[in-house]
């Protein structure tokens, strides 16, 4: 992202940026950057905390007042820890661990999607939004298409997208559905416990691992690339293989 700062500034537009990986920002040395001690994916630090976000934002914008540069400042305030009593597998009010073992993936996924629908709806009502909707198909349909792909290695493209793009939007939607449903649990599970629940305790997570496996050895190079970065987080892959 620091490259964009260089290019924009060279073209006459002043820039300031938030940095999540300090060493990368040091290397690229953009005109102005504020390094923040937050997890990847949360550059403003804390969801639903306007005051916290405002402090981070102002600190980044105030770098525009520096008389000379480059400037790389450190933001001093950590994101407060999430108070959560979650144990592994309890990030969501619905636990599926036993069901997955008892039935095939197709049945297990269909039951999960049905069981999570109410929690997902609650999350949508609370937030007034959802990030599900990249693919214009229902969640049951998205799940079925992914299950069918794991059986046949074939996938019908939707909405004029390529095969890998289709797979990507189906994956994004299904995962977002599970994550958003999990977030509806009272006590707001943190990012890590939601991730742990999805990847290790649901048939949905198991399906994604299977999709990745098939993509990794698929003859379609674009699916191979998808498997490399876009389906299973590296930390999860490593834990599963360990």
């Amino acid at each position, binding site marked *: 992202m620091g490259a964009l700062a260089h290019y924009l500034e060279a073209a006459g*537009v002043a820039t300031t940026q938030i940095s999540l990986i300090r060493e990368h920002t040091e290397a690229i040395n953009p005109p102005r950057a504020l390094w923040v001690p937050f997890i990847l994916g949360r550059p403003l630090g804390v969801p639903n905390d306007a005051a916290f976000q405002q402090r981070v934002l102002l600190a980044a914008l105030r770098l525009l007042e520096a008389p000379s540069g480059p400037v790389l400042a450190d933001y001093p305030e950590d994101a407060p820890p999430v108070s959560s009593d979650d144990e592994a597998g309890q990030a969501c009010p619905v636990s599926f661990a036993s069901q997955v073992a008892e039935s095939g993936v197709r049945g297990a996924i269909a039951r999960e999607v049905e069981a999570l629908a109410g929690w997902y709806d609650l999350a949508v009502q609370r937030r007034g939004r959802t990030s599900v909707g990249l693919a214009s198909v229902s969640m049951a349909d998205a799940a079925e298409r992914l299950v069918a792909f794991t059986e046949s290695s074939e996938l019908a493209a939707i909405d004029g997208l390529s095969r890998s793009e289709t797979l990507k939007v189906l994956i994004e939607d299904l995962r977002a559905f599970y994550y958003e449903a999990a977030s509806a649990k009272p006590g707001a599970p943190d990012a890590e416990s939601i991730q742990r629940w999805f990847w290790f305790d649901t048939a949905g997570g198991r399906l994604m691992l299977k999709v990745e496996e098939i993509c990794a050895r698929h003859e379609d190079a674009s699916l191979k690339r998808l498997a490399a970065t876009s389906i299973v987080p590296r930390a999860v892959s490593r834990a599963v293989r360990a």
Partner: protein
Amino acid sequence: MVRLADLPEWDRKIKIEKLKELDGFDGRPWVRPPPLAECRIAVVTTAGLHRKGDRPFGQSATDYRIIPGGTRAAELVMSHQSVNFDRSGFHEDHNVVFPIDRLNELAASGAIGSVAAYHYSFMGATQIRQLEPKAVELAALLKADSVDAVLLTPI
């Protein structure tokens, strides 16, 4: 996030590998913007955000999507190719990635001059020098919107 020294060895290696393509920006461009209270500000994010119905980002995409300032949060989705970052924060509150509401509040309070009519989103997962043509194109669009300064947000 944590420093590289705090990461597991395998993750640190991946991020150190990335360092190789980051150096070599020898130029030190420096544009002095007006005082913050007069600045018109746009957000440019590399989070792979766009509106529902916009074409999702493809692998290694270097193009951008336009996010009009009045875009409702309910319209924003993310199709970034990487799954190696937290998405639950964005699911909860778009401002944790794309702080448009906070920026509008700063404009209302007079801390900044104004908020741009258009904001832009890239997907940062690409060879960074391939971003130059689109960045140059973007600079012209930003100037046409009278933008004085850009806030870049990563993911």
